[in-house]
């Protein structure tokens, strides 16, 4: 990941979209300073808090970062089985998450376990608190993880592919749950996913990543209606939609995502871009504002590309 800047407002739902290797998970891990060796945050700042009294995560001491994780920001992962301790009861693990931060007294923490499980709509929460993780189904484990993450009332929940391992009917339940929690508790959500449809359903703003860079960002409606980066535009046309009748050919993006140890010069998307111009091969475009609130990293922009080659609009 290289020179990524973005912000998340209080209570906002932001989607980070990209393919595997695009840097979306590393971005999220960086917010919690969880980047694994040999990776490191070489430069930059991660500011958290209200204007004027922001803390920089990169500069925090170990004690501070421990407080920050969980208390201010919680994270849930794709595979809830590997994120829980298999030999401890689920209720105990949720209590432990609270005990670690001393925001609640031991008694308060104990009393909060069942309501937390109830809040994430686990049926029979009193009994379920006494179960071990393997006695939970995949969807229930993810709910329990969300309960654990929210137990310290963080301001931000980072969900890294939270529904990818789940079936669609269970995915719908989890998305609905995240939506309700965001609305009722005001917890901001960063949703990291490769699934554009999930973003359309949950997020008010979207960040599209490619080859470790943000290539486009803006309000979800605007990005889906009028994507300006060719990658976003192509991606939206390459996925079949449930609400479309026509058996038309899907648009394909030729080639593969680049090898980041040896990225192409210029714009990182140019080898796969059907709208590239000479400049794209040499000079990397900046992430510039293209419309109020919408930014794209492209020399051409789709509105110009489509005006020049209108027949491209429908060509697969």
């Amino acid at each position, binding site marked *: 990941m290289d020179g990524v800047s973005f912000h998340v407002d209080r209570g906002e739902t932001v989607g980070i979209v990209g393919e595997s290797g695009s840097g979306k998970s590393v971005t999220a891990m960086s917010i919690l300073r969880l980047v694994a060796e040999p990776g490191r945050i070489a430069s930059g700042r991660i500011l958290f808090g209200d204007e004027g009294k922001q803390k920089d995560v990169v500069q925090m001491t170990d004690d501070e970062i421990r407080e920050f994780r969980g208390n201010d920001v919680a994270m849930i992962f794709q595979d809830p089985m590997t994120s829980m301790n298999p030999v401890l009861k689920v209720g105990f693990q949720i209590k432990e998450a609270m005990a670690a931060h001393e925001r609640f007294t031991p008694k308060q923490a104990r009393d909060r376990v069942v309501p937390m499980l109830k809040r994430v709509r686990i049926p029979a929460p009193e009994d379920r608190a006494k179960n071990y993780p393997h006695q939970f189904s995949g969807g229930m484990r993810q709910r329990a993880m969300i309960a654990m993450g929210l137990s310290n009332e963080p301001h931000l929940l980072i969900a890294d592919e939270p529904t990818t391992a789940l079936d669609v*009917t269970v995915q*719908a*339940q989890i998305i609905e749950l995240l939506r309700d929690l965001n609305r009722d508790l005001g917890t901001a959500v960063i949703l990291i996913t490769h699934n554009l449809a999930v973003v*359309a*359903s949950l997020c008010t703003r979207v960040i599209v990543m490619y080859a470790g860079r943000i290539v486009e960002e803006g309000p*979800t409606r605007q990005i889906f209606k009028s994507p300006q980066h060719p990658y976003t535009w192509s991606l939206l046309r390459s996925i079949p939609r449930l609400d479309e009748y*026509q058996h038309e050919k899907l648009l394909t993006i030729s080639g593969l995502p680049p090898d980041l140890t040896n990225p192409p010069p210029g714009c990182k998307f140019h080898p796969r871009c059907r709208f590239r111009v000479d400049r794209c091969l040499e000079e990397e475009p900046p992430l510039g504002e293209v419309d109020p609130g919408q930014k794209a990293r492209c020399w051409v922009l789709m509105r110009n590309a489509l005006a020049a080659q209108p027949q491209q609009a429908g060509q697969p």
Partner: protein
Amino acid sequence: MTTEQRVVSDVDTSKQIALVRIEEVVKHFPIGAGLLGGQVVKAVDGVSFEVRGGETLGLVGESGCGKSTLGRVIAQLHPATSGHIYFKDIDLVTLKGEKLRRMRQQLQMIFQDPYASLNPRMTVGDIIGEPLTNFHIARGKAREKRVNEVMRICGLNPGFISRYPHEFSGGQRQRIGIARALILNPTFIVADEPISALDVSIQAQIVNLLEDLQDEFKLTYLFIAHDLSVVRHLSDRVAVMYLGKIVEVADSKQIYDNPLHPYTKALLSSIPIPDPDLEAEREPILLKGEIPSPVNPPTGCRFHTRCPIAQFPICSEQEPPLEDKGSGHQAACHFPGQL
């Protein structure tokens, strides 16, 4: 948008004749020994349908519903516990030895995981060409020529014939798997989640390749997937499976426009659409809980424990048969179309 439109099923009469007919197929797996001995996983529990020549039949359902097992049973990778699988009116279940082998040439499979389904110690040429050797069809130069041809058809550079699978990306590996399935000129291909392990930007390439191959070689597909958007795009007809049973079969358009089974309806409503405006208006039908265990499926209608419109005792006692509810639209429900 595009000029290229695929032939719609109801105007093409060649797609009305059954190529594969499945009758009351059952596949049970015994589990454990000792204390658990005697229990069986009822992965596929009495399934009947047909796949018509030249069509794509989409088989959808959630994990654990038995769709992959059914695909493997049809492709003769697992023996069926009971039931009949007719391929061109010959019951594969009764075939043995050389006769079964000969039928297998016409019946191939594409697997989900392009990393696990290719032998890492064989060259791509050997992987794709092995069926030709196995069936004594071609050797040496003739084999290489055919491998070259199939590689080109599948969008692989024939210059890579001596390379090994690890040198290829996921999408290219899936092309290798497709080339291997194609080399014997099959008529019927079971594709089990062929794109779900691939990156989003690569999926469309494989979907388009499968479509092109079908048009060019008059292939019939059983396309197994959990992604209903892709199934809708590819399939002429769709069969929905729940806990070892088919709950609904209909033309693709009918099933998406007018689902009769409450499970189908809930499944469709759960799929998000990549359009924020539409999403804001949609209200998914949220099902209670998750799919029950196939070891001990619910009595009566298997969906009654999660069904929003179940009525008791009928739904918990009587199993609804899969029957025609008009113009070939089959559903297994006591209250079809009422959700």
